């Protein structure tokens, strides 16, 4: 890889051990993908929940945090993805003391590095969206696909160690979606139906993600007959990234790089057709039971508008199974102030902040609470939670709230 004078200085250790280690890591990854150089980035977003890091990852982070302050402090705004614990609700979820201990050590180490603990996977709704052409190093796959596709920014999936490296060096290897060559559409998706609800948007994203199939596939979607809102595109992108590892999509006439199909369609693009039947088949494949042990709205965290909608569905209801709604620390105070939290809690629900359900030691809390059959309106969640021993089922927000009241998903 071609290095600038400053990068050579980092590699030589002249800017401290942390930056040297970070640049070495970036060069290994860059060499693997044939990157010619590094590109400066303006923001980094770090996925780092204590379950993923475990003792080994946290010890690694603590070793960085013990370095001199000039060596260890990030050089660009570096923020965090949701983590594993909302300390105020840990008892509600029956999270164990060892989980809280890991999470506290993790947060302490991040503060020593100068990382801002935003704890959100919807930073494009709540902190600061990246802009068209802005090179960033973002973590959560839902954040990356939204930023690339809806905002027109440029990021690869950056795992936690790589996002921390980007925070320390202020750059990332220039490969993949930082390059024009990777952003053309190689899968042409024609849809004959436009989703109406968030779970339908997620399911459509899931179907397209499965069909597209890998990180280097870029779908362009034709046939969407409305301007979906940010929450719809959030669920659409998050599910596509989850089911297909997709990092960029275009929607003709909607997303910034695709005013017209010809603007993005690459020669030889694969043609696929997707309709409502495909979405219904996906949803049906997860309907294995009609009873529900827990209802969860999470993954991605809920926006203020989603919490408003949920609060409206909770008025006058009484839940017989737990209902959990997860949002960001930026949204939660507004939800409190506007009474949404109170209305959800009066029905028996719980509003959690700064965490994500599937990053919260999901297997252990399932065992502790006797949860197996889980209803959600998040297609991303149903894809993930099977591996944690759940039977996840996908339904609309309305059907999920009804299930919380009756214990049955209709």
């Amino acid at each position, binding site marked *: 890889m071609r290095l600038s004078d400053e990068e050579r200085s980092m590699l030589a250790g002249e800017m401290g051990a942390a930056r040297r280690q970070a640049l070495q*890591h970036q060069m*290994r*990854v860059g*060499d*693997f*993908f044939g990157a010619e150089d590094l590109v400066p980035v303006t923001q980094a977003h770090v*996925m*780092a*929940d204590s379950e*993923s*890091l*475990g*003792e*080994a*990852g946290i010890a*690694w982070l603590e070793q960085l945090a013990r370095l001199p302050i000039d060596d260890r402090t990030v050089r660009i705004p570096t923020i965090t*993805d949701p983590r594993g614990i909302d300390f105020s609700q840990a008892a509600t979820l029956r999270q164990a003391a060892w989980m809280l201990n890991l999470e506290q050590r993790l947060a302490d180490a991040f503060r020593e590095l100068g990382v801002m603990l935003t704890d959100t996977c919807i930073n494009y709704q709540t902190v600061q969206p990246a802009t068209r052409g802005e090179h960033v190093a973002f*973590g*959560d*796959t839902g954040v990356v696909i939204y930023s690339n596709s809806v905002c027109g920014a440029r990021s*690869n*999936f*950056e*795992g*936690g*160690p*790589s996002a921390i490296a980007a925070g320390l060096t202020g750059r990332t290897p220039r*490969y*993949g979606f930082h390059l024009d060559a990777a952003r053309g559409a190689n899968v042409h998706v024609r849809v004959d139906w436009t989703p109406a609800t968030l779970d339908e948007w997620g399911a459509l994203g899931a179907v397209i993600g499965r069909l597209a*199939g*890998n*990180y*280097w596939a870029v779908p362009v979607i034709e046939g969407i007959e409305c301007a979906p809102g940010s929450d719809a595109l959030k669920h659409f992108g998050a599910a596509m*990234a*989850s*089911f*297909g*590892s997709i*990092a960029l999509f275009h929607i003709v006439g909607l997303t910034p790089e695709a005013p017209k199909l010809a603007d993005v369609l690459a020669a030889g693009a694969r043609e696929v057709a997707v309709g409502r039947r495909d979405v219904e088949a996906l949803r049906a494949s997860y309907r294995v039971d009609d009873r529900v042990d827990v209802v969860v709205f999470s993954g991605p965290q809920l926006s203020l508008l989603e919490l408003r909608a949920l609060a409206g569905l909770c008025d006058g209801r009484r839940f017989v199974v737990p209902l959990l709604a997860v949002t960001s620390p930026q949204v939660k105070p507004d939800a409190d102030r506007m009474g949404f939290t109170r209305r959800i809690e009066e029905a028996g629900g719980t509003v959690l902040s700064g965490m994500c359900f*599937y*990053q919260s030691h999901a*297997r252990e809390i399932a065992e502790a609470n006797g949860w197996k059959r889980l209803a959600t309106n998040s297609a991303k969640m149903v*894809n*993930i939670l*099977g*591996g*944690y*021993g759940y039977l996840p089922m996908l339904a609309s927000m309305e059907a999920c709230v009804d299930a919380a009241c009756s214990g049955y998903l209709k």
Partner: protein
Amino acid sequence: MMTEEFSATHAMGEQVEGVALVASDGFSARYDLDRIRGVFSRPQHKLAGQSYVDRILVLDTAKGGVASAWMLHEMKSRGVVPLALVFNSVNPIIAQGAAFGDLTMLAGFERDITVALRTGDRLRLLPGQRLLRRVLVASTTG
């Protein structure tokens, strides 16, 4: 049978030799694995219930979320980790995870590597030469 070789377009890590565990399916440490027991746990996965520990995992592509970048490192710290990873195609996360976890990985072959190889094959991975060598074919009688 003669030793067979497969060239990879992407490679990292040290030379290793071991037994293959093969499936035409994806890979995500968070979505697919019970990392405590060291087995594939997502019921829909083609390797569901099988142990991946000390095997050379041969799969189609890396899927899903960014957690694998941390999780490979965590799995290695406990010794509940594949010996190496081989994919038809990879996403950045798995490459970042292999780099951080110091695992050997090859990716990008002219043939579908999940069809060319079989579970039980003995493989030698030579990242410096971007080569995968099959040194022993699995018995058809199992």
